[in-house]
């Protein structure tokens, strides 16, 4: 009995090692393509995953966190339209890593090893047109809650510019999770910072941009250039800088300050952050305009976010019917800690429903600006539905208050917000104003309704 058990064990071992994946042939290609952008010296991840020794030493953990889909970090579920630079392992790749670890992490034939990946040493998009740096470093404490902080940087531009891409480089990459870029033409943020005598000012989403209420304040939020109002997009850990597609560009009015709205994640060790930002200009103005359709409007300001303490399944929704044919090129989601899921669908005129973005385990820490692989065609009459759910119970480990308390809309990270932004152009450029007008009406209707309820 014991003998035969032993024998079959041996046979099994023999068989599996014959088919066992090796590092050089099977594992290195996965790590090089899917992990090395972050797991290499000088980047945000805590160790490199480039050599056999690197991977072998952490084999068990690699098997564990790839199986649980925590690595590579990518919060969007598979939906109907592919995203660019999607960081997702296939089931086959996950299985390969499992097998490699289970079979004892064989190195394999040196000749099978693909060349190590190469990365742009300075800026991925080449020489920038303008590079600016935070004038003073911000001290990130060793521990404590996540920090949201806004930094105003003077650009000192005497002419209006069109921006096609923004790249970002943190100085303390272990604590900077993501940052959103905004423009401030009023000098408010810089003044707030100067008056306080501190480096940066507090509050999420650029802080000062959030409407104080009333139509006047919100009207400006629809913006003109595109994306989110006065926005220049954002950067998240592991992101690769990309130009806007199709010659599109953000308008950068002269005299604007650049605002970084940065999310810090204390690491156990105090760090000093002085970010560097690279701007790429277009030499000619874009021939098309784009805009961000935010649903619900204004980061959920009028969506009735008022979540009782302990409530497990609170949700907000908004829908918008497209007044003209549009093409979508990007989508992003925003909420704070207790949001749980995002679901954005497009119901086409033929009643077919497609998923644009689905997030089933929202993590405040990973605010990706998703870019579609190709334009997504959404004909006139398509209904965009956005639904966001929240869990304000004590069972939600991400709940920042324990015991839970009533949570309402607000800009502090213990308040909530919630919206998605779909970045679109009009399929026919002359119809762009009609698109903007349609969204404007939606906005006004939403605020009237909200005002009426109050």
């Amino acid at each position, binding site marked *: 009995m014991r003998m035969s058990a032993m024998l079959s064990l041996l046979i099994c071992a023999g068989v599996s090692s014959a088919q066992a994946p090796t590092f050089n042939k099977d594992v290195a290609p996965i790590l090089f393509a899917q992990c090395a952008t972050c797991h290499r010296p000088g980047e945000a991840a*805590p*160790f490199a995953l480039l050599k056999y020794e690197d991977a072998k*030493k*952490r084999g*068990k*953990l690699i098997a*564990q*966190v790839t199986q*649980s889909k*925590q690595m590579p*970090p990518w919060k969007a579920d598979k939906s109907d339209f592919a995203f660019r630079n999607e960081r997702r392992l296939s089931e086959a790749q996950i299985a390969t890593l499992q097998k490699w670890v289970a079979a004892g992490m064989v190195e394999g034939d040196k000749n099978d090893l693909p060349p190590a990946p190469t990365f742009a040493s300075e800026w991925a998009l080449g020489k920038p047109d303008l590079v600016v740096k935070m004038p003073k470093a911000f001290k990130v404490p*060793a*521990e404590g*809650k996540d920090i949201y902080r806004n930094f105003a940087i003077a650009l000192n531009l005497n002419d209006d510019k069109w921006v096609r891409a923004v790249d970002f480089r943190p100085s303390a990459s*272990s604590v900077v999770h993501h940052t959103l870029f905004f423009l401030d033409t009023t000098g408010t943020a810089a003044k707030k910072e100067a008056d306080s005598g501190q480096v940066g000012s507090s509050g999420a989403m650029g802080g000062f941009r959030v409407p104080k209420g009333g139509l006047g304040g919100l009207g400006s939020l629809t913006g003109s250039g595109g994306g989110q109002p006065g926005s220049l997009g954002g950067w998240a850990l592991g992101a690769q800088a990309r130009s806007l597609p199709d010659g599109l560009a953000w308008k950068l009015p002269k005299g604007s300050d650049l605002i970084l709205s940065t999310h810090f994640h*204390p*690491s*156990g*060790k105090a760090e000093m952050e002085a970010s560097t930002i690279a701007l790429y200009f277009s030499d000619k103005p874009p021939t098309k305009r784009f805009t961000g359709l935010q649903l619900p409007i204004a980061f959920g300001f009028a969506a009735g976010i008022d979540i009782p303490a302990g409530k497990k399944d609170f949700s907000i929704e908004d829908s918008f019917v497209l007044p003209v044919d549009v093409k979508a090129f990007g989508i992003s989601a925003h909420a704070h*800690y207790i949001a749980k899921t995002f679901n954005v669908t497009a119901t086409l005129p033929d009643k077919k429903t497609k998923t644009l973005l689905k997030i089933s385990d929202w*993590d405040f*820490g990973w605010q990706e600006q998703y870019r579609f692989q190709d334009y997504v065609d959404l004909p006139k009459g398509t209904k965009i539905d956005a639904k966001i759910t929240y869990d304000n119970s004590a069972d939600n*480990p*991400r*709940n*920042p*208050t*324990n015991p839970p308390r009533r949570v309402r809309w607000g800009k502090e990270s213990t308040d909530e917000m919630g919206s998605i932004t779909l970045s679109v152009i009009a399929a026919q450029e002359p119809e762009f104003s009609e698109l903007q007008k349609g969204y404007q009406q939606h906005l006004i209707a939403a605020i009237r309704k909200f005002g009426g309820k109050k």
Partner: protein
Amino acid sequence: MRCCLSLLALLAVGGLHGQEKSTSFSDLNGRSHTPLSQADKKATVLFFLLPDCPVSNAYGPEIKRIAADYEAKKVGAFVVHADPDVTIEAAKKHVKDYGYACPVLLDPTHILVKATGVKMAPEVAVIGPDRKVLYRGRIDDLYVDYGKRRPAPTQRDLRDALDAILQGKAVAAATTKVIGCHLPDPKK
């Protein structure tokens, strides 16, 4: 075979294997310590850390606080590096970055790892004056899972264990599961 089994059983109950009782280690400053038999302490905490493990590093400030809070209560503390690739220089840099005040020991051959039965970083083992492992596991429940962290811990397992030991009580949860990084293999 039978011999092996009984040895395993012995370790599982939490007794330290004979030889290691008097094992002496030098800290980064060359001072000698016997972390497994500290006669003048009511208990000794070994913090097994890995300098490249983000979960382990996130605990830096709390480890310092625990070491300081319990020092006056005659509880000893050591940081232990069980990664054979961590050199004295690397360990010194880690101390400088995170400001640990307690002695730091290198355990490349896993003498302390085997004696206490730890497997992860950050994992702690609390050793009593009778040389038994009284608590082994996580520091607290800050991490719910990999990448999922609470704003603050709701259960402070190590502090609870130390408080119980100091009051002469049994530790309620003598072992807990650790979220963190697996300790690498020892030096051969």
